[in-house]
């Protein structure tokens, strides 16, 4: 048990080092903005301190870097370390005893895994994400709606149904009564995005936040019926957290008006 914890910490630190490098410059513009202490940071008794280990879904990467920045600006005594990964993998790590204080998942099901182990205190949905059609810049396949995915001459990439974005894609297609002519089922949403960025496929289905993060290499197309498959993001403090006050403060900041504004900016929907 102790060894697995030590390994989990090591893995977390390794991820942190990588994420730290990647997130630094990206969060520049946000850190330039004046950050008043968040309204959700009301301290119960004295300033909070110590470390908060946040296990967050990979799709939250960019926005949690900004949230972390503002949170630590408001609570200078607190160090936030974020471990990004696939939600199901993170849930498994937490159940196996990884030292997490907060879990932010990309699906209610993965939060349930942690809650069923008695480790999630009162999960709250804090954001939602909607699917969008994504095409390479210039839209070579002249895609303008979900029905275009049925055209056999187009190369189409979707997430595999085993992962959350694939389940959402299948749901949206089923709701529209469409059977897409798919060329590849990718292992995660970023892999779909890469295939589109490289122009190897004419269209794919990814989250709106991924389209925004990808910039000019791709174009996003909203489609009617996307509401049929909205992905919800729950967050919870972990019950055996060694730093419960800081964990609660972090969760409070994410659901606060300022946290919600940052999420909105990144393309997330209201819970």
């Amino acid at each position: 048990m102790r060894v697995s914890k030590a390994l989990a910490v090591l893995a977390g630190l390794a991820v942190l080092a990588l994420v730290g490098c990647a997130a630094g410059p990206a969060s520049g513009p946000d850190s330039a903005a004046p950050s008043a202490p968040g309204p959700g940071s009301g301290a119960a008794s004295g300033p909070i301190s110590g470390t908060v280990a946040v296990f967050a879904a990979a799709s939250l990467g960019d926005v949690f870097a900004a949230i972390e920045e503002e949170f630590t600006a408001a609570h200078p005594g607190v160090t936030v370390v974020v471990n990004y990964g696939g939600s199901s993998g993170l849930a498994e790590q937490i159940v196996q005893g990884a030292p997490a204080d907060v879990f932010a998942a990309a699906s209610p099901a993965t939060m349930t895994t942690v809650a069923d182990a008695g480790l999630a205190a009162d999960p709250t949905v804090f954001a939602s994400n909607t699917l969008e059609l994504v095409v390479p810049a210039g839209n070579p396949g002249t895609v303008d709606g979900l029905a275009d995915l049925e055209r056999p001459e187009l190369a189409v990439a979707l997430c595999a149904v085993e992962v959350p974005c694939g389940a959402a894609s299948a749901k949206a297609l089923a709701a529209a009564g469409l059977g897409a002519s798919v060329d590849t089922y990718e292992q995660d949403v970023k892999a779909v995005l890469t295939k589109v960025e490289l122009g190897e496929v004419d269209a794919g289905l990814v989250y709106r936040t991924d389209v925004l993060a990808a910039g000019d290499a791709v174009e996003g197309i909203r489609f009617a019926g996307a509401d049929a498959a909205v992905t919800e993001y729950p967050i919870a403090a972990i019950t055996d957290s060694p730093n419960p006050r800081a964990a609660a403060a972090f969760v409070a900041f994410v659901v606060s008006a300022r946290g919600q504004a940052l999420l909105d900016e990144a393309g997330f929907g209201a819970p």
Partner: protein
Amino acid sequence: MAPRRPRRAGFLAPALWIPAGIALALLALPLVALVVRAPWADLPQLLARGEVLQALALSLGTAAIATAVSLALGVPLALVLARSAEWSAVPRRLLRALVTVPLVLPPVVGGVALLLLLGRRGLVGEWLDAWFGLTIPFSTTAVVIAQVFVAMPFLVLAVEGAVRASDRRFEIAAATLGASRWTVFRRVTLPLVAPGVSAGALLCFTRALGEFGATITFAGSFPGVTQTLPIATYLELQRDPDAAIALSLVLMIVSVAVLVSLRDRWVPGLTS
């Protein structure tokens, strides 16, 4: 004391047994855990599904074709590599580096590189598409190409080692007796390096069988077309870890069976 002839196996300093034991444990214990944790009771039902058999058949088929392609192209490359010992340093080292790079490259990077070459907008793929209407990604051909890219170096290096260790005097003798170069290759060189070729082909096949990163990046994943067993295993891990363990078990058993059953019979040279 009369000099004693060392036993054939040589001797081993006792201190070496400890790191050797740790090394073996590191290699074997994870597989033991896999076997122990496998959902044996549900195994028949987990494995009898059509998708599993389909993925297994695709894996075996593509790995066999990739091995055949690697043999046809890799053995000649190995001969060139062995002869490159006579070249000057720069081209010799460059050639060796080019052959070795796929071994050390993360396979996903290899997959991206293949896309950039053969993809619809790739250096060569763009012309294939424009002139012949050929698109390689997302096809079974792409699976084979990815496997060859990753696995052929194993074969090339194994055969090259065998060529270097072989006695060139047999070839020279054959040549002086009037055999043509092609006959020398067919009747002398090839039989001499046959153990190395079998060993290389075996490594190549098992590596191709387990190939994941380059395949999913370059060929994608579609059941029956490009979804090989390792890809099916990875995707299953997201949904049902028990089913994923069952699939890994199949892959492991097939690989171990190939290595154990064929090694002694076909590859005496590998252990010597």
